[in-house]
């Protein structure tokens, strides 16, 4: 967890108020996996230093380049988007626990809302590399705020829902989940707490609605899987990545704690990716 030297390669606005930045940071990219995040240092006008987490949107170990998505209107975001190519950055990462995909899962359903596409974007690259089929359900306020399809691989089936109906389905993106839940072997979501709670509720009743067979051993067979482990996430139908402010990223400050099913959990260390069953959705929603 040491700060890695990073240089801004490219920055551009992809949707209003959302900037995609490419950083050359070989030491950070090495070993990065989908779902992990970077802790990016910034400072306000009076020099108070702080860090904010950004999910890794893409990472290319060959070129040592990664991308993050930066939102205007936040202190860190406004400072970052004013940087120009060639400027240096202070990134710590990759941090946190990544998504875990069951090796037998062939169909992945990804659900995102607005700018949170960045939270699941890297998983698309990994899934296509492993010859899996991917459907991305994306919600947005209007067609102007929809994540550009040009930034996605051609292999992805991209389904859009907008609140005003200007593009795709009119309504919340969670309405689309039922159409794909029978097709999907696993699903992965990133978005607001209320959206994630809705998706988690759908995932809970999925097995009863569809009568889906459980992958793996028969009930009661084998050793129990420890809660919070990579194996538990791999077995879960739904994994969520929490977009939460993180203070220390070391697990010491307890500033990012959310309610878990078995007590408080730290997003920075036990997350940011959780199996849906690991969280207490009553409070999160």
């Amino acid at each position, binding site marked *: *967890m040491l700060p890695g030297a990073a240089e801004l390669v490219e920055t551009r606005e992809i949707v209003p108020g959302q900037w995609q930045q490419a950083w050359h940071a070989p030491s950070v990219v090495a070993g990065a996996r989908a779902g992990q995040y970077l802790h990016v240092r910034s400072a*306000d006008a009076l020099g108070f*230093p702080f*860090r904010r987490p950004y999910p890794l949107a893409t990472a290319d170990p060959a070129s040592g380049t990664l991308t993050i998505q930066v939102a205007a209107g936040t202190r860190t975001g406004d400072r970052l988007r004013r940087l120009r190519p060639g400027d240096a950055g202070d990134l710590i990462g990759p941090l946190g626990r990544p998504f875990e995909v069951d090796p037998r899962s062939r169909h992945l359903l990804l659900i995102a809302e607005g700018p949170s596409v960045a939270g699941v974007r890297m998983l698309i690259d990994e899934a296509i590399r492993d010859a899996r089929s991917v459907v991305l359900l994306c919600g947005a306020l209007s067609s102007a705020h929809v994540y550009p399809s040009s930034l996605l691989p051609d292999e992805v089936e991209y389904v859009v829902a907008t609140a005003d109906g200007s593009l795709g389905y009119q309504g919340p993106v969670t309405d689309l989940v039922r159409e794909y839940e029978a097709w999907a072997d696993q699903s992965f979501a990133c978005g607001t707490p209320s959206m994630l709670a809705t998706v988690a509720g759908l995932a809970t009743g999925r097995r009863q609605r569809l009568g889906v067979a459980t992958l793996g051993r028969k009930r009661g067979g084998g050793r129990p899987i420890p809660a919070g482990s990579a194996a538990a996430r791999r077995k879960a139908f739904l994994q969520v990545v929490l977009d*939460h402010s993180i*203070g220390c990223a070391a*697990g*010491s*400050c307890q500033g990012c*704690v959310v309610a878990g099913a078995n007590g408080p959990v730290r997003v920075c260390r036990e997350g940011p990716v959780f199996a849906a069953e690991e969280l207490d959705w009553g409070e999160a929603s």
Partner: protein
Amino acid sequence: MGRGVVKARRRVVPGMPPRRTPTVRRIKPAITPVSRASRPAPVGARPDTAASEAGRRGAGAGARAVDLLGGRPLALEVDLGRGLVLPNPVIAAAGPFGYGVEYADLVDLDRLGGIVTRGTTLKPRGGHGAPRTAEVPSGLLVGIGMQNPGIDVVLDRYAEAWAAWHVPVILNLCAESVGDMVECVRRLEGVPGIAGIEVNLSCSGGRGGAMWGLDEGSAGSLVAAVRRATELPVIAKLTPAAADARAVARACEDAGADVVSAVNTLPGLAVAADRLGPALGSGYGGISGPALKPVALRVVYEVAQVVDVPVIGIGGVGSIEDVLDLLAAGAVAIGVGVAVLADPMLPVRLADELADACRARGLASVADLVGTALPGRSAPPSTKGAEHAR
């Protein structure tokens, strides 16, 4: 010269100039060899302590006292009383640094002056709901709610690691009643690795915010109870919300506190982005960061004038300038708080920079920087010896 030894005669050839004899020039070495008395201490010893000890031994043996870089020895130790001696004045303040073990792989903890753990209570506490932090102008509003697993679990998990460290570990304790606090303190009996206790007088998870430290009566009663229950050094942590921090500090001193630390966070509020309620799950929070520094300076400045016990300054420390300001206001040691979130190595770096600042001023001890801004000081600290700064 004995017999049989033939002395070589210089051969002189007529008509030729005499051969020049080679000259050997004695060159003054660029680096003066270090005397035995002031050689570096073995690996694992604290450099500054080792250097000063070497200097003392060297002085007794008549050797020149020098530190590792060949300069004059620098005394960075801070004696807080009752056997609690910090290797240097920069400590990690309670809260952001957790229990220290979280940073053990990242930070050279033995180069810190001390570690104050996060607040610990008798029973486990779940803390406040999310969100727990909110960015405010020039600072961070924090409402954790004293989440901790309870004193028994903390000691079980971490005391063994603390005992193995050289850095003094001070346990921050928080309680809603005197009985709970005394019970917490009693659990520390015979536990190795704990150098002292910091009594949190502004437990934000208690009866609606800062409570013990608001008046001298309740602060004094809590500290007195702790004093009776333990022989460990006791630090009383003041709240800036008190109407008169001087009275509270005096009460703590009279009750037996060995040290006073100032200040805890200042209660505050931030409004959520949708303006439908507070930004924090707890509603209120504590302001930390640069916004707190002027408040901390005021309290340290006032308290240092009325108590005889050492004062630890905490609040808004993010640079060496902040460290020097708090020392000048009367603090003998300073705590680094929320700034470690962005830079965990900051306390160690500040300790190094403080040593450099002393050398640049030609000071033999960091104590010469303490209290220079207090009224009634007859003269500024001596700058004699500035030529030895480097």
